[in-house]
C-alpha cells in the first residue's frame, strides 16, 4: 500500500523539538552506533526517514522512539549533526500527544504558554482548595497542628469530604485517562497491525515486563554511559518513595514511619537529581541535555519545587513550626497536584506509563516476528527422506 507524504508533519514536529531532522542523509551511522538498537528494531535512522517524509501513520505506529533512552551516542557520531537522539526525544513528545485522545497533550506540547498557564491555574486552585480544607478542618491537616486557628471543623465532616476523597477522585481521573491512552497506544502500534496478529498467550508471556522495566529501568542501564541512568533512577525512586509516603499518609494515616524516614529521603533524592539535571540542561553539559523543550524544563522546575517544599515542610514540622510547615504543605501540594494532573497524563511525565508499555509491546512484536522467521527458516530446510 502506498503511503502519502505529508509535508506538514515536519513543520509540526519542529514544535516538538525536531529541528535538525532534515539534515539527515541516511548514512546509518546512528543505527550502527546505538547500543540499544537490535533486530527487529533498528533505530534511530528509520524513524528519521519516516519523519522527513511525513509518514505520520508509520510514525504513529512506531515503538522505536520509546526504546531509545537518549544516551546521545548517535548524535555524537552523526556526520550531519542531524541530532538523531534529540529527534527520537521529540518523537516521544509527539507520540505522547498522539496517544492522548483529549488533545490537551498536543496543546501543552505545542504551546509553552498553555502548559505554564495550566500548571499555574491548577496550582492556584489546589492552593485555594487546600487552604480552605485546612481552614475548614480547624487549621489542621492532621500532620502539623496550629495553622489557621478557630475554624469550624464540623462543617467539613458534615459535608463528608476529606483529602482522601479528593485524592481518590483525582487518581481515578488520571488513571482513567492514562488507561484509555495506553489502549490507544496499543491499538496504533500493535493491535491494528494485521501483519502481526498477536496470539493471546504471547501477551500473557511477557506481561511481567511492564512492572520489571518500570522499576529497574534495566534497558537504560544497558547504555554505554551509566551516569544518566543513575540520575534517572534516583529521580524515579524519589517519586516512588514520595508515592509511598503519600499512600501511607492518606490511606493508612501512618505518619510516623513514612514521614520520619522515607519522606526526607524522597525529598533529598528529588532535589538532588532534579537540580543535577537542571544545571545540566542550563549548562548543556551532555548530549541529552543540549536541547531542552519547554516540557522538559517545566517538569524539572516542578520536581525541584515539590522536593524543596516537601523538605521544608518536613524540617519545619520537626522543629515545631507548625504554621510554617502547613504553609509549606500547601505550596507542596500546589506543585504536586499540577504534576499529577497535567504532567503525568499529558506531558513529560507520561513516559512513565508509555515506556514500560512500549517495552512490553516491543517484546511481543519481536516474539511474533522471530517465531514467524523461525518457521520460515524451518520450512526452508528440506526434509530429509528416510531411506
Amino acid at each position, binding site marked *: 500500500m502506498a503511503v502519502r507524504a505529508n509535508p506538514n508533519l515536519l513543520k509540526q514536529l519542529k514544535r516538538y523539538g525536531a529541528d535538525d531532522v532534515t539534515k539527515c*542523509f541516511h548514512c546509518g551511522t546512528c543505527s550502527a552506533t546505538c547500543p540499544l538498537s537490535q533486530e527487529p528494531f533498528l533505530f534511530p535512522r528509520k524513524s528519521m526517514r519516516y519523519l522527513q517524509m511525513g509518514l505520520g501513520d508509520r510514525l504513529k505506529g512506531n515503538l522505536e522512539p520509546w526504546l531509545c533512552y537518549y544516551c546521545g551516542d548517535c548524535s555524537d557520531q552523526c556526520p550531519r549533526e542531524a541530532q538523531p537522539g534529540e529527534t527520537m526525544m521529540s518523537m516521544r513528545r509527539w507520540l505522547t500527544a498522539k496517544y492522548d485522545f483529549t488533545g490537551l497533550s498536543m496543546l501543552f506540547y505545542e504551546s509553552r504558554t498553555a502548559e505554564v498557564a495550566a500548571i499555574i491555574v491548577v496550582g492556584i486552585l489546589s492552593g485555594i482548595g487546600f487552604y480552605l480544607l485546612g481552614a475548614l478542618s480547624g487549621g489542621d491537616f492532621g500532620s502539623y497542628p496550629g495553622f489557621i486557628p478557630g475554624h469550624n471543623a464540623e462543617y467539613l465532616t458534615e459535608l463528608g469530604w476529606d483529602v482522601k476523597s479528593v485524592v481518590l477522585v483525582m487518581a481515578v481521573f488520571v488513571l482513567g485517562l492514562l488507561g484509555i491512552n495506553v489502549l490507544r497506544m496499543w491499538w496504533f502500534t500493535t493491535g491494528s497491525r494485521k501483519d502481526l496478529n498477536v496470539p493471546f498467550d504471547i501477551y500473557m508471556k511477557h506481561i511481567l515486563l511492564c512492572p520489571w522495566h518500570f522499576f529497574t529501568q534495566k534497558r537504560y542501564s544497558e547504555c554505554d554511559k551509566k551516569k544518566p541512568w543513575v540520575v534517572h533512577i534516583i529521580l524515579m525512586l524519589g517519586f516512588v518513595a514520595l508515592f509511598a509516603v503519600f499512600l501511607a499518609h492518606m490511606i493508612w494515616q501512618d505518619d510516623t514511619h513514612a514521614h520520619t524516614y522515607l519522606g526526607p529521603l524522597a525529598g533529598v533524592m528529588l532535589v538532588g537529581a532534579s537540580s543535577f539535571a537542571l544545571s545540566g540542561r542550563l549548562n548543556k553539559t551532555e548530549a541529552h541535555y543540549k536541547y531542552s523543550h519547554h516540557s522538559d524544563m517545566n517538569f524539572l522546575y516542578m520536581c525541584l519545587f515539590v522536593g524543596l517544599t516537601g523538605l521544608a515542610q518536613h524540617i519545619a514540622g520537626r522543629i515545631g513550626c507548625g504554621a510554617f510547615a502547613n504553609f509549606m504543605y500547601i505550596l507542596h501540594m500546589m506543585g504536586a497536584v499540577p504534576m499529577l494532573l497535567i504532567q503525568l497524563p499529558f506531558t513529560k511525565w507520561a513516559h512513565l506509563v508509555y515506556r514500560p508499555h512500549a517495552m512490553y509491546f516491543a517484546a511481543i512484536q519481536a516474539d511474533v516476528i522471530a517465531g514467524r522467521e523461525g518457521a520460515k527458516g524451518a520450512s526452508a530446510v528440506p526434509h530429509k527422506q528416510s531411506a
Partner: protein
Amino acid sequence: MTTECKIGVYVCSCGTNIGKMVDCDAVTGYTKNLPGVAVCKSYKYMCSNPGQEMIVKDIQRYGLDRVVVAACSPRMHEPTFRAAISHGGLNPYYLEMANIREQCSWVHDDHQQATDKAKALTCAAVKRVPFHEPFDMQSVPMNSASLVIGGGVAGLTAALELADANQPVYLVEKDGKLGGNLARIDLTSPYLDSAKDLLAERICRVTKNPKITVMLNSEVESISGYVGNFKAQIKSNGEAVTDIEIGSIIVCTGFREFDASKVGEYGYGRFPNVVTSFDLEKMLKEGRVVMKDGKTPKYVTIINCVGSRSGKYNRYCSRVCCMTALKYANGIKSAAPDAFITNLYTDMNAFGKGCEDFYRRSAERDTIFMMFDKHAPPTVSAAGKGEHFNMLVKVNEILSGEEVEIPADMVVLMVGMEAREDSMNVARLVNISRDKDGWFIESHPKLDPVATSTDGVFIAGACASPKDIPDTVAQARATTARILAKICQGEIWVEPVYAEINEDLCSGCRVCNELCPYSAIDYDPVKKRSAIISVMCKSCGGCVAGCPSGAIKARHFTDKQIFEQIEGVLEWASSRA
C-alpha cells in the same frame, strides 16, 4: 650483413613480473650463443638508472651497434631505451624490443612454455635488428593561428587565452550568438553566482579583441592539412565561404539535452506542469516560478537522472544534474518560500569543491531527499478529483522501503547531457574518434585529457563528456597551454616513422587514398601518382598491405625486417627439433 653487427641483448626480469614465470637466465643462456650477439645480460630492472647505464657502458666497452631489450611492451619503455642508446652514441632506431612481459609472463601459466616463447621472441628481435635503419627526427613549421569550433564557455575561454598570448584565433559559432548552453542558465551551482555575469565579461572581451575573428552563424565545411599547417573552409550564413590557415584546432561543440518526452512515465508533454531543467532555468531567469495557470506551485518534485544512468537510455551519469537539482531546490525556495520541495535521486553526486556543503545546506532548507532505484523510476499521474494539488508522483523509496505518494503541482525533470546530433560529422571533419555514446575521445583519459589521436586537434568542455563549468574552463585553458607550447617551439618535431610511396611503382589506382584512416595520402592528378604526407602518417601499415602494386614501404617496418623477425622465431623452433 648479419655477421657484421655487434648486438647487445638485455633481458629484464621486471622484479618478479617477468622473472616469476620466465626463466630469464635460460633466455640469456640461449641468446648469447646466437650469431651477432656480442654481449647478453639479464638484470632485475632494465629501465632503472643502473639498468640504462649498463647499456650505455656496454655500447662503449663492446663497441655495440645494435641493442635488443627483452622486457615489457614497447608502448611502455621504447622511448626510455631509445633515449638510453642515443646517450651511448647510437641512432635511437637501432633498438628493438622483445615483449616478454605482456606477451609471455603475464599471459602464460606454464613456466616452460613462457620461457620458450621468450626465447623465440628474443631470437626474432636479434634477427631483425641488424636490418634497422637510422632515422633523424623531422620538423615542420608551426602556424600560430588557431581555429576554435563552438562559442560556449569552453570556446570563449580558449579563444581569450590564446588572444591574450597575442596569437590569432578564429572562433566559429553555429548559432547567431555566443554563450552556448550557459546562456540558458540562471544561477550556477554550488555558489549560486549568476551565469550571465560569468558570460557577459567573456563575450565582451572576445568581441572586442582584435586578435579574435568571431564568425557567427558559421560552420566548418572542410579541413585539410596536418598539425601546424591546417587549411579550413568556413561557411557563414549558409553561403559565404572563407578560407583560413591555422596550426591548431580546438573543438568545443558542447552538448545537447536529453529529450524528456522519451520517458513516458514522467508525462512530459502530457502534463503541462511537468517541465525540464531548461524550462525551469527560463522561469528562474524571469524571476517567476509559476504553473501554467499562473499560480505559484506549493508542491514541487524534482526527479534526477532523467535519461541518464539507465539501461534504457544513456548509461552514463551526466555529472552536473545532481548539483543543478539542489540549485533549483534553493531557487524555488527563494521564489516560493512556502513550497514543499522533494528531490528524488538515485545517488547524490556531490563530488566537486563546495558541493557537499551545498548538499547539506539544501537539506537544512527542508528539501526532502528520497532515493529510488534507477531500475524502478518514479511515475507521474494526475491527482484524484478534489485533491488540492494536480499531480501525484509515486516512488518506491529505498531508504524507508515504502511506496510513497508525493503531492505535486510541478515536476522538474533533470534531463541529462548528450552528444550533439552532428558530433559524428564534426568527428569526421577533424578526424577524431567518438566513444559509444558519441563523446569525443581523448588521447589518454588521465594523462592527456585534451589532446586527441590527431596531432594538433584538441577537445575541451562538454563535447568530450558531461562536465560542469569549472571542469570545462580548466580543459579549455589546458588546450591553450598545449598549443602555446608548440607555438613557442616554432616548429613541430614528428616521428620519422612513416610510409613512403615509390613513385616509379605506383600505378595511381588510389586504393590507398581510401584506406588511410588518417587522410595522410594525397593524390597528384597531374603526375597521376599518390604521395604520403609524412607528418600525418601514423605508420599503421594499412596502405602498405593494401597497395596492389607493392609500391608502399613503411619505414622501420620493412618487409625485410618483418621476414627476418619471422625467421628468428622459426630458427628457435628448429634449434629445438
